């Protein structure tokens, strides 16, 4: 393999039912910076069926070029179909870097491809950067349950691949006037390898709340105690126009559903306000929320680690403070 042949930064632009996933736009934001660092192009790979109209969206969010792989075989995500298509794109275009969202699709496809092209893959990165001296691509990720951070490099293999969790990178402002090139790519499918058949896709009408999209999160931990405690947080969240999220402890205890969990094994959030109530702040939790704009913590234990990241820390009883704060804010906002 001649490393010098591999150029440009590629993003796998994940779509579901024709909708570009937010993580793809976030990746474009970061990849733009990387491509500029190398003085190279940012290319989005858009794979699916009847998705051509989405190419301009990817350009508006930073792509210079879109490789459009439009085929009926790619209507629904199935590992082998997508692996064949993206593998052929990699073979044909020789990317320096390929980024994927760390979703159930990206985390299924990217390792399959890493084995197919025999290259390295760094999972769930929280930071991507170029080394100042030699522009080595540095991929930083939490390891050991978020207790340590490791920066990974892939020196001798190409493309260098990474997945990034949704909500970690920031997308650029949409610029509809941006111009870009769309290249169609037609893969040759080997259907004899298609051994998995999709019977049905079920969207559960679970009361899903996307806590990653909330501007304000009132988050509860062990100190909240139970469902009644969370009802108090909900009232406060309602007044602030926010959502309620939770630490792992309350999810494991069955008090809160998993889709509300913030942290290493939950979601990464960066709201304008993160109000942590009765959360001690295990490192796994901090990993999911420390990028929040403003962090206020209420906890009885003045040594709770959450205070180490809080902009404002209140040592006190959330069961007294939260209802009073709710009442006070309701009046304040009415004014």
């Amino acid at each position, binding site marked *: 393999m001649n490393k010098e042949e591999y150029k440009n930064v590629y993003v796998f632009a994940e779509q579901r039912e024709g909708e570009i996933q937010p993580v793809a736009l976030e990746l474009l934001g970061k990849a733009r910076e990387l491509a500029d660092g190398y003085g190279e192009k940012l290319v989005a790979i858009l794979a699916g069926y009847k998705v051509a109209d989405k190419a301009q969206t990817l350009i508006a969010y930073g792509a210079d070029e879109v490789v459009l792989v439009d085929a009926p075989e790619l209507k629904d995500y199935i590992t082998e179909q997508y692996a064949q298509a993206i593998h052929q794109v990699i073979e044909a275009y020789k990317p320096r870097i390929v980024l994927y969202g760390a979703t159930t699709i990206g985390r299924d496809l*990217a*390792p399959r491809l890493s084995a197919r092209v025999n290259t390295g893959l760094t999972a769930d990165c929280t930071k991507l950067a170029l080394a100042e001296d030699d522009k080595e691509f540095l991929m930083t990720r939490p390891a050991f*349950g978020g207790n340590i951070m490791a920066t990974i*490099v892939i020196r001798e293999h190409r493309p260098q691949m990474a997945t990034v969790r949704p909500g970690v990178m920031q997308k650029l402002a949409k610029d509809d006037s941006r111009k870009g090139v769309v290249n169609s790519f037609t893969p040759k499918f080997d259907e004899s390898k298609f051994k*998995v058949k999709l019977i049905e896709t079920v969207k559960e009408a679970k009361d899903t709340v996307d806590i990653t999209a909330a501007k304000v999160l009132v988050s509860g931990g062990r100190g909240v105690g139970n469902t009644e405690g969370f009802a108090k947080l909900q009232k406060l969240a309602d007044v602030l126009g926010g959502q309620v999220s939770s630490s792992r402890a309350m999810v494991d205890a069955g008090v809160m559903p998993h889709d509300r969990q913030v942290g290493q094994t939950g979601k990464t959030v960066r709201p304008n306000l993160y109000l942590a109530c009765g959360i001690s702040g295990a490192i796994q939790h901090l990993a999911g929320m*420390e990028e929040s*704009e403003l962090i206020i913590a209420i906890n009885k234990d*003045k040594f709770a680690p959450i205070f180490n990241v809080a902009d404002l820390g*209140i040592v006190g009883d959330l069961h007294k403070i939260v209802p009073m704060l709710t009442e006070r804010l309701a009046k304040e906002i009415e004014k």
Partner: protein
Amino acid sequence: MNIVVCIKQVPDTTEVKINPVTGTLIRDGVPSIINPDDKGGLEVALQLKDKYGAHVTVITMGLPQADAVLREAFAMGVDKAILLTDRKLGGADTLATSNALAGALRTMDVDLIITGRQAIDGDTAQVGPQIAEHLGLPQVSYVVGLDVKDGKYIVKKETEEGYQMLEVEGKCVLTTLASAFKPRYMTVAGIVDAYDREVEIWGADKIDVDASKIGKAGSPTNVYKSFTKELKPAGEKFEVEPEEAVELIVAKLKEKHII
């Protein structure tokens, strides 16, 4: 039906603490466990054994002390255990690990391979799909339900929005979620028995893989540096009456234009 479950011995990362003075990990006294997603995989394999009389083999790659997790698997009910251990396999990243395990699996007569989705010490979720690719087998990851019907696997896969039902023809690799399969307890007889059972010890010479693809040499990724996380500097902390606390919070929200 022959099932092989790949498991990993991991430190219980929820028990890991940081030394507040030095900022380094305290690893001493942290217990080692079967990785939870892998234990879910063991459970689903044993369910197929209960239902259809499948033969269940468990394999782990690791240091000699990984013997402990194989004994635990015996006590849960597996039929055979293999410890793949060799210095030549050391320093492996996910790709080299998957090459080694695929090399072992190539030598076995197997209908279904199960791995956990991801291990709690690395959280990469890569080894299962990589094994599938090396062996040229179909894969389904994030598995939360499994049955066999007319010789096909009916698989329930968890997604962000809900789930998918998939049908897989023939030999395949599935990666399981701990949350879906509550592992059975070890039986008392099983525990007693587990220490008399034979764990097969395999070295690198026993597996079918190119020597350049295993261990450190077969690993495309390298750790450039590792460090404990820098946290942003702490703000102010107040121990005050609730009334005053409320005023402090309201003032802060106004200052930052939240309200």
